[in-house]
């Protein structure tokens, strides 16, 4: 394993030192491993807290700032943080209008955020949670822990963040988050495995002529393995399960995220987006807003995912609203 790190166990802690050094506009709580908006708590604003295992950067720490998250809780690599720091984040961003937890659907995250919410409620805080679960790779989701939360989380954080910034109340911000999640679907794939620092070697072996379709963001194996194929084929394999799960051809504006898993260069991600767009055009999907890049990653894994959100005019307005975070910034 070759990585730009010191000791594997210190990766998250030391990476946060860099975040603090690079972003004086943010506050870093090194003890609890939190990235917090500099002006938190914002009086009268709903506080947004997300978090989970590290290794998905820029998600979540890179999405803290005006118009998006108030705090991110950074667990060990691919390991949910414990309730204690989640509680600390909740307290730190509570500006009196309640706090929304944005949780990706993984058992560890759900259990730890649940325990934290119980503790916060005990001390009188008003906490709601939205669990994202957009990964169509998970079939038979009734017989499993349910679909995983992946790419849509970025868009939930952006739109709920904009809604909170507008001063909406907790129920209304939660409603936006649920609307985005309910209308979002994602499918991802990998060309290579990631390497968890503490493990020191690739999580899975993927032969040079194979790819894994339907992966999550933790090096979990995917839905199936298949012979490595050209980008145009891969685009078909990613979009087929998305488009057959939900219809996106209503004419409603669609937000598309062509996301890199970390190790794939941007030139390839744009090429993939070109292939995806061709298919979307053929299916009469009207993409109104697009992001192409590394937004929710799996360390150095090579691969990509496509997320589509069927939006409406209000959601597009919230998308366009100003945001100022290390990972997503416009309008200010």
């Amino acid at each position, binding site marked *: 394993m070759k990585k730009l790190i010191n000791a594997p*166990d210190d990766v998250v802690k030391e990476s946060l030192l860099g975040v603090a050094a690079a972003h004086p506009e943010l506050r870093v709580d090194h003890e609890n491993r939190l990235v917090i908006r500099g002006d938190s708590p914002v009086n009268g604003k709903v506080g947004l807290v997300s978090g989970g*295992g590290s290794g998905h950067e820029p998600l979540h720490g890179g999405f803290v700032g005006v118009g998006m998250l108030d705090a991110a809780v950074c*667990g*060990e*690599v*691919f*390991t*949910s*943080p*414990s*309730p*204690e720091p989640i509680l600390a984040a909740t307290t730190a961003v509570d500006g009196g209008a309640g706090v929304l937890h944005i949780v990706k659907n*993984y*058992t*560890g995250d759900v*259990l*730890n955020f*649940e*325990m934290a919410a119980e503790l916060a409620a005990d001390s009188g805080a008003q906490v709601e949670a939205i669990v994202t679960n957009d990964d169509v*790779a*998970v*079939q*038979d989701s009734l*017989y*499993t*822990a349910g679909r*995983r939360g992946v790419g849509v989380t970025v868009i939930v954080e952006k739109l709920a963040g904009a809604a909170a910034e507008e001063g909406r109340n907790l129920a209304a911000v939660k409603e936006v988050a649920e609307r985005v999640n309910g209308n979002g679907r994602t499918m991802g794939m990998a060309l290579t495995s990631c390497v*968890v620092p*503490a*493990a020191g070697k690739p*999580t*899975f072996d993927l032969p040079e002529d194979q790819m894994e379709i339907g992966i*999550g963001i*933790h*090096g*979990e*194996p995917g*839905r199936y393995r298949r012979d490595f194929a050209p980008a145009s084929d891969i685009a078909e394999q990613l979009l087929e399960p998305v488009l057959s799960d939900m219809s996106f051809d209503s004419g409603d504006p669609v937000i598309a995220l062509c996301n890199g898993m970390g190790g794939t260069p941007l030139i390839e991600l744009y090429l993939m987006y070109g292939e995806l767009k061709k298919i979307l055009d053929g299916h009469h999907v009207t993409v109104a807003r697009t992001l192409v890049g590394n937004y929710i990653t799996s360390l150095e894994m090579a691969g990509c995912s496509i997320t589509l959100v069927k939006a409406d005019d209000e959601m597009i307005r919230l998308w366009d609203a100003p945001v100022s975070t290390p990972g997503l910034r416009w309008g200010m």
Partner: protein
Amino acid sequence: MADVSLAQVQDWLVRAKDSVTEQRSYLTELDSAIGDADHGSNLTRGFGAVVDKLASQPAASIEALLKASGMTLVSTVGGASGPLYGTMLLRMGKAVGDADTMTATQLGEALRAGLEGVVARGKAEPGDKTMVDALGPAVEAFEKALTSGEGAATAATAAAQAAAAGRDDTEPLVARKGRASYLGERSAGHIDPGSASVTLLLEALAAALADG
């Protein structure tokens, strides 16, 4: 038959820490086949913190000891197993109450309460290929041994054996809870990491009681 002492409970957790630390790569290996390759490091970190905690702040009762350990696990393990093992110890402590020894029967009740806590938190059913598939049979075996007139040490040995059998039985199962469930059919053919760590914990318990 001797009661189980506070010192033995503490010894259990120290042995548990030694065991998960020693088996760190084995647990992580299992987790990398059907999970995210961190179960070994999660538990090594968590039980390491538990032992540190007990060393710096000795507990006055079994309840205090198990509660402090449970809270420490919750706050240091992260992942799915943190809240689950944490809840298990918290419930065990509550079941025993404020005492510095407990009878074998009380230990059996505590284990049962721990199992119920894990099920309440994680909502897994038997056969879902989780730690419950080792913990459930272990608690039953413990209770059955007591019914046959055995003491805590022998019952714990039986529980550890039942856990190991439960662990091995997870191999052909298709996971329905936790990360492994995302694999569907592909989760079959691998032992569940949590059932393996439950087995290590019960083997540590049996050893602590045998030597005690």
